[in-house]
């Protein structure tokens, strides 16, 4: 068993780190403050090939593995949680299901421009009344001739409005089981921005990842071509769940990056900050906290990388992804909270990055399955 990264992965990390430090870090505070989507950064990432890392070259991607993609989200998130989630939602939630379930035509039409970063992707499952209980969704799609007609709304959609291609989950039929209980059958669809009847509601004002565009999607008699059904009709729910398994690895990487970024700041700051005549890094309280954080972060990293490796080699990786996301998200929240404490009053001031990092960390415990959902997935497998 070898925990060392290969030379190519090491070099990829060097690239992501250099890009993050040069192109992303200088804008992170501004992006948070203004809540503006960093379109310029996305354009640069597209040019650098970051928008289709695990996608085969024949579909416009880089032909790398999930681990490389994970490391990209990690390094971006070290300096800016917003930038990390833009790449994660685009790659894991939009490109990945089309690559996994799409027809050859769908892959050529949608994955190629998405992987090249010419277009941005998003994924829409959550609705006002359907969060953790995704089965509670109400959005419907009815086949009318050669078109599906969508009606309903989705909320909290990452890359909303800025995105060009949306994976939308909607009910396509309701059937009754033997006992007469009604069961909703979902299907997945590819919907393009600009389709008549597809509009955007209000932009959400969030606690963290404030540069990420989070919107409500509204479908009013939105007609999409029949061939935009993704995967078999009625299989939308398992498609969504499998997509989220992959998405969780991306979010776990984002959480890991945020925690690592906060620890980096803490190491710098505690060496400089003097109280009682010496640096606070010379106080045992600080030293022990730094040690605890470093140990947790490395444990999180191993879980995240293990999940990424599992995605490369296994068909089902739900439990690995759930463990990685659960632990990395809770580590991010714990570490950023502790780092703000080490910074004292300065940690509470918006001028310092760690305040933003603590706000950014919180969402990783909530989206793409709350920590409670991850515990359900893990325990479900244990008690099967």
């Amino acid at each position, binding site marked *: 068993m070898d925990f060392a990264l*290969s*030379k*190519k992965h090491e*070099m*990829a990390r060097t*690239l992501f780190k*250099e*890009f993050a430090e040069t192109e992303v870090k200088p804008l992170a505070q501004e992006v948070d403050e203004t809540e503006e989507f960093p379109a310029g950064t996305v354009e640069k990432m597209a040019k*650098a*090939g*970051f928008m289709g*890392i695990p996608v085969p*070259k024949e579909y416009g*991607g*880089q*032909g*790398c593995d999930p681990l*490389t993609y994970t490391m*990209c989200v990690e390094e971006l998130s070290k300096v800016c949680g917003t930038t990390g989630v833009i790449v994660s939602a685009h790659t894991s939630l939009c490109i990945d299901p089309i690559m996994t379930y799409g027809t050859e035509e769908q892959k050529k039409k949608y994955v190629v421009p998405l992987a090249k970063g010419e277009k941005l992707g998003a994924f829409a499952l959550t609705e006002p009344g359907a969060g953790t209980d995704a089965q509670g969704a109400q959005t419907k799609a009815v086949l009318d001739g050669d078109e599906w007609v969508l009606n309903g709304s989705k909320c909290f959609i990452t890359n909303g409005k800025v995105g060009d291609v949306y994976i939308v989950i909607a009910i396509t039929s309701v059937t009754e089981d033997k006992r007469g209980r009604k069961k909703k059958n979902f299907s997945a669809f590819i919907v393009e921005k600009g389709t008549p009847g597809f509009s955007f509601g209000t932009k959400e004002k969030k606690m963290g990842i404030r540069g990420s565009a989070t919107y409500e999607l509204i479908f009013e008699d939105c007609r999409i071509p029949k061939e935009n059904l993704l995967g078999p009709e009625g299989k939308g729910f398992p498609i969504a769940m499998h997509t989220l398994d992959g998405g969780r690895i991306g979010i776990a990487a984002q959480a890991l990056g945020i925690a690592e970024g906060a620890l980096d700041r803490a190491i710098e700051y505690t060496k400089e900050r003097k109280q009682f005549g010496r640096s606070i890094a010379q106080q045992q309280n600080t030293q022990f906290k730094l040690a605890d954080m470093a140990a947790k972060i490395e444990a999180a990293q191993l879980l995240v990388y293990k999940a990424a490796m599992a995605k490369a080699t296994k068909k089902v990786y739900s439990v690995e992804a759930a463990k990685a996301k659960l632990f990395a998200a809770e580590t991010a929240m714990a570490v950023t909270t502790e780092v703000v404490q080490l910074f004292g009053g300065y940690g509470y001031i918006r001028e310092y990055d760690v305040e933003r990092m603590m706000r950014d960390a919180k969402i990783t415990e909530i989206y793409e399955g709350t920590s409670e959902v991850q515990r359900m997935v893990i325990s479900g497998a244990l008690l099967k």
Partner: protein
Amino acid sequence: MKIVVCIKQVPDTKGGVKFNPDGTLDRAAMLAIMNPDDKAGLEAALRIKEQTGAEVTVVTMGLPKAEEALREALAMGADKAVLVTDRVLGGADTWATSITVAGAIRNMEYDLIISGRQAIDGDTAQVGPQIAEHLGIPVISYAEDIKVEGDSVIVKRQYEDRYHEVKAKMPCLITALSELNVPRYMTPGGIFDAYDEKEVIVWGRKDLKDVDDSDLGLAGSPTKIAKASDKVRKGAGEKVTLDASESVTYIMDKLKEKHVI
């Protein structure tokens, strides 16, 4: 069209310079990077490749570790990479280095050779022009802009107070300034290709053409370094506010006091 780009792996001096007890650079203690002027030269070559479909080969002389810089060049888009490494080449100064690199390039096809102006570890700016001299081709140094036109290159050459626009027929050698361009990032796919698809060809002494052993390595290096040191930080100095004539007297007194005059 075929372009050869000469690169060097150098210690990153951004974080300060570290020395061994004997005064030589402690390369192991410093991060190794591709020399910035060389990277600009590579970027210029890659842009010519995009326009003309030229083939770009990178070459370096160095320790086996220098392979990393070549892989980086491959990941940026270079087609081929040659590492010239051999114990007998160790300790080379600019003279021995340029003879070695020229000896390697004699075994390659080329229309254009691009090297960086100078490396951030030695700062001599000698190797590029010397390679051209050994190969008997023209050299245009300090390029800030390069255009290919038919069988010629047109180069904007930087001077302290002006530019020269110089046209030369290929084959020729150009030394590039880091101001020439902003080098592209590697791509993730380029990195995978650099390790999985492309190879770094390793050459030794026997692969050098038309060179004498007496011109190689430490033995072939006429340069002897008496002492090397990092920049010594100067003290804060002394600030005085005086009028012009008082200043003259003050400075004269100080110079006399220090026995300068």
